[in-house]
């Protein structure tokens, strides 16, 4: 199922996200890994689940293998594909592989820089950028590789991209967003935004683009995490009020408070967008609760 079909039908699209484990997933070996458990948790409330691609440049199970596992469990994966670790040959080949293994959605990203991860001395690839990747993916959908060679069978992927509404100057980020649309992006997921006014400004400026946008939100699990994000996650700002509110409650009540804050933001921003993308970082049960509450509100 392509997310683009859902947007075409004016569905309000809910998605969540899992990070593959650092290790293998075997059918017959030990307990189910957290990424599959988390995906299973949200299975009934979301349309699809993003599978991150060696997120934060930390080496893990491949996004494609984990996406296929999700598909086998009846969960629609959104295969995240970054430009950091593969050249143009590998990227195209992996997109053909993804299509051949039943993956219908590909989210094309640049990727976090190598030195931010756990293999700091690795050679970064960045042979092509995310705009070029989208254009190449669109070409594969049309039956040709980037050199114009015909494919025996075309891919049929719903192509997504990301945008950061927090970016300053915003015009520069929007310029890139427009390039992504022209290249082939059919839906967008945003970077985490915690200030509805920033989001509103962004939405106002992209109205004319007529492209579905999912509001992105990382669930802030503790005041320490909020502070950590402000210090170490470039391009995201967790406002003081969230850090304070999370800090005021007992540890045991943090999940409840995180649910409340996430719901509050999601509810306020939902009327501006065509869907919401949750990044729970292990707290997928919060996603379930927030979506149920939003649905009860008629969203």
């Amino acid at each position, binding site marked *: 199922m392509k997310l683009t079909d859902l947007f075409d039908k004016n569905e309000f699209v809910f998605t969540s996200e899992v990070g593959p484990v650092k290790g293998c997933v075997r059918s017959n070996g030990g307990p189910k890994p957290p990424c599959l458990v988390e995906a299973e948790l949200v299975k009934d409330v979301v349309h699809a689940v993003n599978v991150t691609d060696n997120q934060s440049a930390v080496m893990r199970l491949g996004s494609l293998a984990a996406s296929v596992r999700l598909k086998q469990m009846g969960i629609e994966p959104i295969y995240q594909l970054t430009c950091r670790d593969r050249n143009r040959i590998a990227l195209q080949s992996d997109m053909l592989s993804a299509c051949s293994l039943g993956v219908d959605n590909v989210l094309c990203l*640049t990727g976090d*820089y190598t030195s931010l991860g756990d293999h700091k001395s690795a050679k970064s690839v960045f042979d092509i*950028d995310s705009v070029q990747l989208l254009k190449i993916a669109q070409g594969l959908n049309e039956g040709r590789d980037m050199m114009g060679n015909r494919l025996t069978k075309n891919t049929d992927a719903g192509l997504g991209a*990301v945008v*950061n509404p927090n*970016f*300053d100057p915003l015009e*520069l980020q929007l*310029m890139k967003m427009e390039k992504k649309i022209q290249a082939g992006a059919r839906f967008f997921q945003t970077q985490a935004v915690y200030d509805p006014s920033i989001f509103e400004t962004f939405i106002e400026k992209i109205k004319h683009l007529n492209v579905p946008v999912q509001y992105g939100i990382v669930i802030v699990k503790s005041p320490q995490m909020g502070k950590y994000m402000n210090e170490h996650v470039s391009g995201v700002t967790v406002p003081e009020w969230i850090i304070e509110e999370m800090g005021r409650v007992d540890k045991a009540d943090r999940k409840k408070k995180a649910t409340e804050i996430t719901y509050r933001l999601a509810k306020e921003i939902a009327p501006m967008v065509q869907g919401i993308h949750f990044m729970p970082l292990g707290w997928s049960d919060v996603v379930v609760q927030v979506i149920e509450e939003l649905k009860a509100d008629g969203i």
Partner: protein
Amino acid sequence: MIGTVPKPFEEVMEALEGYEKVAVVGCDGCAKACKSGGSDEVAELAERLRSQGKNVVLEVTPERTCYTGKTHTALDPHEKELQDAHALMVLGCGGAVQITRKVLEDYGMIKPIKVGLDSVGHMDTLVMGELALEQCQECGQCILNETGGICPMTKCAKSLLNGPCGGSQDGKCEVDSSRDCAWVLIYNRMKALGELDKLERYMAPKDYGKMAKPRTLVITERKVI
């Protein structure tokens, strides 16, 4: 210029282990500008090697050690000392080391040629004697006409050609917050030039075939093969 920095002295000593008589060859071009291999640094290293028991038989600093002709000019009068040396220690870029090896081979000498510096890139001098910056990586396909004279291939950690990633914050790079985001620099420059519309153009993937190593520059034909 080619930026160079000294290797730790222990590494230099390790490279020279087993060689008692040493010739130290510097470079009065880039390495001099980097204060890593000019005649002053050659004298300094020679002194240090002597204090560690080495017999420094020659100190010489060609005007440009990466030029075969200039290295010949400097070394030709010293064939005897070079013959006497068990090994050469070159304070120059990787090119200087290899040209020195070639010049010795021209003399029919097969000698160990060791390097005392690490080469760290094509550097532009911002403040003479103080600060240099990498701004060009010789991609063979210059795009500065399109980007306001600021190179995203070099100044953007990810070499992005179609705009910034989402990790830039307050105009700084996600990889190193002390570094400017190349795309914010490009945006501001193009805005000041009144040419922002030019940034809307799609930039196709680079032809990395033009960076396939090793490249040969045929100067007489003004082309790379």
